[in-house]
């Protein structure tokens, strides 16, 4: 791992309450962006409960739509979760697009890496069979391009309200404390004896 995952600037979005759509579809966004990624949450998705709409869209600022799709496909192979929605993976693409907007070097590294993947696939790498994609990903794992994508993904993918809901992490919901909200609700093991634990404060 390179040095950067620790010093990433944070999207304030991470700190927003869950009511807000993480990725919004707006007409204005459609007109401004260099590309747009679309998707729909699965009918059974738990995330549908916290999103305002099942449809999501990501406006890209620098990368084009194809580049966005290849990166989305790449992140899905780096961190393959069978039931994780594309909407969450798209947050990684959003952060990569943001980095590409801020730094010409990153933009060049990403577009070059994507071009090489496409060349490997003889066309659209995102459409390549998963087994072939996995082989390609393993082959580039030591490249700076891969490290940029991976080190961004390990932060972005697991640090947002949708991921917290998917994986079952309370995040800000715990800000008031779990003392009266299930901190000790595990019932499949015996409770420790009183002398090894302690009393629950009355108020």
């Amino acid at each position, binding site marked *: 791992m390179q040095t950067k995952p*620790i010093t990433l600037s944070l999207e304030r979005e*991470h*700190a927003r309450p869950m009511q807000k759509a993480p990725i919004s579809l707006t007409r204005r966004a459609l007109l401004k962006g260099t590309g747009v990624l679309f998707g729909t949450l699965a009918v059974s998705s738990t995330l549908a409960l916290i999103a305002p709409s099942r449809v999501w869209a990501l406006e890209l600022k620098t990368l084009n739509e194809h580049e966005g799709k290849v990166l989305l496909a790449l992140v899905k192979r780096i961190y393959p979760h069978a039931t994780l929605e594309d909407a969450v993976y798209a947050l990684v693409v959003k952060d990569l697009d943001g980095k590409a907007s801020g730094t010409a070097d990153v933009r060049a590294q990403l577009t070059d890496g994507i071009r090489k993947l496409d060349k490997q696939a003889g066309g659209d790498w995102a459409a390549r069979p998963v087994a072939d994609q996995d082989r390609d990903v393993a082959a580039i*794992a030591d490249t700076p391009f891969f490290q940029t994508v991976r080190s961004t993904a390990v*932060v972005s993918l*697991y640090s947002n309200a949708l991921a917290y809901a998917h994986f079952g992490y309370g995040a800000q919901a715990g800000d*008031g*404390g779990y003392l009266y909200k299930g901190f000790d609700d595990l019932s499949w093991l015996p409770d420790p004896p009183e002398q090894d*634990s302690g009393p629950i404060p009355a108020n």
Partner: protein
Amino acid sequence: MATTHTQEQPGKKFSLDDDHVVVIVGSGAGGGTLANELAQKGIDVVVLEAGKLHTQADFLADEWASFQQLAWLDARTASGSWRIAKDFPNLPAWICKTVGGTSVHWAGASLRIQPYEFKALTTYGKVKGAALLDWPITREDLDPYYTRAEKKLGVTRTNGLPGLPGNNNFKIFHAGATRIGYKHVNTGHMAINSVANDDRAHCYQRGFCFQGCRFGAKWSTLYTELPRAVQTGHAELRTEAHVARIEHDDTGKVNAVLYYDAKGALQRQKARAIAVAGNSIETPRLLLNSHSAKFSAGLANSSDQVGRNYMRHTTGSVYATFADKVDMYKGTVMAGIVEDEARHDTSRGFAGGYHLETISLGLSFYAAFLNPGAWGAEFTDAMDQYARTAGLWIVGEDMPQSSNRITLNDTLKDQYGLPAADVHFDDHPNDVAMREHAFKQSESLYKAAGAKDTYRVPPYPSTHNLGTARMSENPEDGVVNKHGQTHDIPNLFIADGSQFTTGAAENPTLTIVSLAIRQADYIADQMKQRAI
């Protein structure tokens, strides 16, 4: 909520030319405690804190955002064979740059170092490659101060305070530990209120201990020692005051501190005595960066021991997954301990001992630290089980080694142009053997509780940084004497974990606080005698 708040205290202001003040560098467990103890005696102190003031209301329930808010992120490098040097080359330590220092971030575990651990060399004998030494003080010497510290911190299971109620993570830990035969398993000695105490609330099991305790249930100098010191009218806290250099007079006594203020302007605060408490990386860095014609190797460094013998405890984590939900993130992060392995028993294949303590990480940091750099299906399979995961942390004694050391980086400078610290660390074979034993025991513990998979997690960036200005009986073996007073310069003190002669198997904060209380008594006495 705490009734005393740092920002509400107008307090006393001292002039830069006031040369009767004791200047304390750092406001954490060591510096903050020393400041209050001195101020309570009527001794005037100026505390210089590099970080900003972040209050309880500012704390964030978001791991990365909180990390950006509280962590020390100035330039640093890591070198050596430890994995941190590869995974986090610019983050050797996870410590804080904020008012209250790392007492904002600590987990609260408060254990007394055991009597035999103060006599490490005598007890373990010579260990090849280790720079072992006995402390110049014994447990009996420190016991009265431990008692005062436990009272000050409101440590659970002392002074009639009950233990904290165990959370889900503890239930698994307790079941597994007792099933494999451990006898001493409980929710620990924690500086976290199990009942309202000392004008602070009881713990609400929030689970963000590392991100700053919003309720103030966990002791931190931020809302105890510091405002109380200011309240006396004998202490001034200057924030965003980044100390660059300590100056001395012709006789070799220190007499001033140069620091960059919040606006980046260089200021010179005169001083009667100076105590450095910048944590075990910044403290030696400051001493080394303060080299002069008279002290060309840095201040208090005639022994060449400044920066050496860096210790960080033998650590590691084991996480385990289960068939049913755990929600380890709910509740006090570290209220769970196994004490049975904290003993010297070489039949296990190593000297010294270790503790097992519960730990939890939120989803973000679990992803970051589970196996840094990892990707692919094995990693994501572990992540998929996050909600059904329990965790513990190993904290054991590591061997002091002369070559494990803080040095000044030749090329990398901080934002003020000062040479950054390089943190060099290699595991000692004893550390490796202990960690292996602890990993195996932890895996057995979780298997006994019904674990499906277990994961060995490498040490996180260091939170326990120790030993880089160590106490020694003989001046050639260390940097400070038994009072934390430097052997070379009588009015220069070290007031943090840098003083530790050896690491012991206990989380260090209670000892840092106890030493600071003891040091305050000594400084007051020395001042009364006009010795300093």
